[in-house]
């Protein structure tokens, strides 16, 4: 019996034409003009961010009740990504380190917004800290989540 270890590497490389649908699509288009919008469930009246087509609790369609949220908010949770990670969306290693946070935007208390923080120093990131969205310059925005570069510390 051969003691040799063979291995066979077969990449899976798929490219999806992915649809955002009317609700997530409206949110992304709003980012392009510098707005963060959420939608309100006609049943339980809570906001969904990012907007979704259906309320998981009421099982009813979300309709078109849109609310614009502040660019400022409060960090309720955070995480530092320091370890190198292969990103299957890039086909490459993701640049690290970066800091991600769950942020409750002013005017949108029902669900946290998930984004990066500018601050990467663990000693300076705290729950309850106030942050503000930093958008790319208007002409560079493409209508993606990356139109917000990150959230910077304020106050």
């Amino acid at each position, binding site marked *: 019996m051969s003691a040799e*270890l*063979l291995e066979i*590497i077969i990449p899976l*490389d798929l490219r999806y034409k*992915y649809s*955002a649908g009317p609700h997530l699509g409206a949110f992304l288009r709003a980012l392009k003009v510098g707005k963060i919008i959420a939608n309100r469930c006609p049943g339980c009246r809570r906001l969904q961010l990012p907007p979704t087509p259906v309320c998981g609790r009421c099982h009813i369609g979300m309709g078109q009740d849109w609310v614009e949220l502040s660019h400022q908010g409060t960090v309720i949770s955070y995480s530092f990504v320091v370890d190198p990670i292969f990103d299957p969306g890039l086909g490459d290693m993701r640049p690290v380190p970066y800091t991600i946070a769950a942020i409750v935007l002013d005017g949108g208390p029902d669900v946290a917004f998930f984004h990066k923080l500018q601050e990467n120093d663990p000693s300076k990131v705290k729950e309850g800290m106030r942050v503000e969205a930093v958008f790319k310059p208007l002409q560079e925005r493409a209508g993606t989540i990356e139109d917000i570069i990150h959230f910077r510390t304020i106050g």
Partner: protein
Amino acid sequence: MPNKKPSNYADMFHLISPSKPFNVSSLDPYVAEIRLVMPYRYFPGPTATRFFVELRDNQRILGIKCRTCGIVYVPPETICGRCFEKLHEWVEVGNQGVLQTYTTSHYTLPIHRNQAPRIYGIVKLDGADTGFLHHLGEVDVEALHIGMRMEAVFMEERAGNVLDIKYFRPVSSSGSPL
């Protein structure tokens, strides 16, 4: 042969060509291109390893026989799916056999090294009870027929996988190699 250590993930990642995060192709309706690429690493296990090593080093095709049902599997399988027994009894089979079925594919996918057409066939090698799925080459498509005698052609450079067989081609006496 030196024992090769399994590659680490970093080595695998280098096989992938990077791309932009995603492209928005339309804003309304909102459609974006999203990539999902992963290099997967498969360890063949002892049976397929021995089979591949024999292909690579000796250009020999081995089969494995189930003692319970008597079936000779080529390519070999560790477990007889019918009897649920582990297989141990290696047998050498010829590199010639009979064509069971074939097709010519007329499209090219990103995973293909060469442009279409691509001819596939299943060949039951002499001494085997199962068919061997592979490419066919040096073939006059019009003359291809079920029952045709075929033989394995090996790659010059062999890496220890199923592609060490380049393809099966018609045996000259019965077929019409180009």
